[in-house]
């Protein structure tokens, strides 16, 4: 149960994990400082900068924008799959970006917030291992370029040459950096207290039940998080809140040996490993 390496191996993945007690700083590490591919987890950093700019009065969260149907970023959820133009507020785009990892919503916000501002915020917070290389459209463009096809590849030889799976050439972080960013949100340090509360609310509205949340199947335990998925990559970072007040930030990044898109055990081990780490923190 508590041997994280064995858990990850049994699920057919290599895993990197950092778990920290937000109140005491006690931690559990398993490759916590290794560079990892962020995939959609980068949207947490974008969310923070979006709210910081709202705090600073540089944007108005309730401002309505129209997202044109012919300008979508590819993606399986939210505005990305809608057939028509959508007029929606910036903060509702932020909701779709967090709840269902809507790529079009994220890219629309990036056009407003700017990636340089996101990276400047990360640097100012001392998250030196974290860098957002491109928006969702740029990420997919690199995959299409490397594979010569539009579909997500499952051919191991093709996957091996994807820049999108190399932390040095795509958006990257470390498990420890991500738990630190989450802790800042939970401690009202990432932005104003009101904005941090909004961010916590949005992270709590994420719909996926199969990764982090699967490790904590209890009515009185809250799980908030953000997933990230690419060929062989399954990630989730989040915060688990226990009924006795215990609050734990957990970041789990995995890379599967197999290339199949559907690997329930690889999804589930994110929750199992997080639970084991939290158990250790609570021992």
């Amino acid at each position: 149960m508590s041997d994280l390496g064995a858990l990850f191996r049994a699920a057919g993945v290599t895993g990197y994990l950092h778990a920290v007690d937000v109140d005491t700083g006690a931690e559990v590490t398993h490759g916590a400082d290794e560079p990892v591919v962020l995939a959609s987890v980068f949207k947490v950093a974008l969310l923070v900068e979006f709210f910081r700019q709202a705090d600073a009065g540089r944007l108005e969260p309730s401002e309505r924008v129209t997202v044109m149907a012919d300008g979508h970023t590819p993606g399986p959820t939210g505005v990305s799959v809608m057939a028509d133009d959508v007029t929606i507020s910036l903060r509702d785009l932020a909701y779709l970006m967090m709840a269902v990892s809507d790529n079009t919503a994220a890219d629309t916000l990036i056009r407003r917030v700017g990636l340089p501002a996101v990276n400047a915020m990360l640097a100012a917070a001392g998250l030196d291992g974290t860098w957002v290389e491109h928006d969702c459209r740029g990420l997919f463009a690199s995959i299409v370029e490397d594979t010569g096809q539009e579909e997500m590849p499952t051919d191991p030889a093709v996957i091996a040459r994807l820049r999108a799976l190399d932390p040095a050439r795509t958006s990257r972080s470390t498990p420890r950096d991500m738990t630190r960013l989450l802790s800042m949100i939970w401690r009202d340090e990432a932005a104003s207290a009101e904005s941090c509360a909004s961010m916590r609310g949005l992270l709590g509205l994420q719909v996926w039940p199969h990764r982090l949340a699967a490790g904590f199947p209890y009515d009185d335990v809250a799980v908030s998080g953000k997933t990230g998925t690419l060929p062989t990559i399954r990630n989730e970072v989040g915060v688990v809140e226990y009924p006795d007040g215990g609050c734990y930030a957990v970041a789990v990044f995995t890379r599967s040996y197999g290339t199949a898109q559907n690997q329930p055990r690889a999804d589930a081990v994110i929750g199992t490993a997080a639970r084991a780490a939290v158990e250790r923190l609570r021992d």
Partner: protein
Amino acid sequence: MDLVRHLRYFTVVAEELHFGNAAVRLGMAQPPLSQRIRRLEEELGVRLFDRSSRQVRLTEPGRLLLAEAREIVARVDRLRDLAGRGEGAALRVGVPPDLGSSVIAALIAGFRERVPEVRLAPAEMWSADQVIALTDGTLDVGLLRHPVTAPGLSFGPVLVQRPGVVLAEADPLAELSSVHLADLAGRQLVLFPREPGLHEETLAECRHHGYVPEEVHEAQTLGLVLAGTAVAFGPRVELPGLRWRPLLGSPLAWRVSTAWRGQAADAAVTFGAVAVRVLKEKAGMTDDGAAPARRVRARPSSGFLA
């Protein structure tokens, strides 16, 4: 007439339902016994026994008066006991059998310190039996688990015990630092016998948290747990082959208090104070009202409106 003596005759006849046997027990002949029961019936203005058939049977009023008569007789005995001063008075207290020997020893020591002239006579009894014994007058003060209902009982301050779960050491859940009630799904459960109120409350809380025991056993020992057949709730135990784990979120709150019938004697009041202190120090109990409200944290994927 000596009402108490007549009531004693009444209780013995009611137990035997046979005048001959009752007379033997009382060390007297049968005719005077029958006579005295008749005089008691005249005194009270009701028929206590139905003697019409070959069998002696209690009448309905007789049944109603029997419990009171027993109590009066028991209390008079007790009065004589206390007045006897022969080998010192005793305070008869009921304690839950699962309390553990170290807690019971601390209760006795603590009470001896405060009231050395009264001996503490603890009897291990479950709550339902304590209620009966308190009502009968065979127990001076109880230490029992709520909810209980009985007319005429008074209760001391309520303490809360937060039970954990006892598992076989081979149970995979024993590897967790704390266990959630929902984790117990599919397992059988052992609950204390003779604790009906506690059963209801405990099982309701289990259902709230997604645990519906496959089967509920009433048992006083942890044999079924040791065998890997079931799990049990209770205070921390250190026994070979077993593992105790706290329950995540402390969902169960078992309430304990002292109880007595009528006017509590000084010694019973003192015992109550000693019990509160000992249970807090030795059994990890806390003042009532410390129970955290259960809060459901809805998730979009599992919420009922999704």
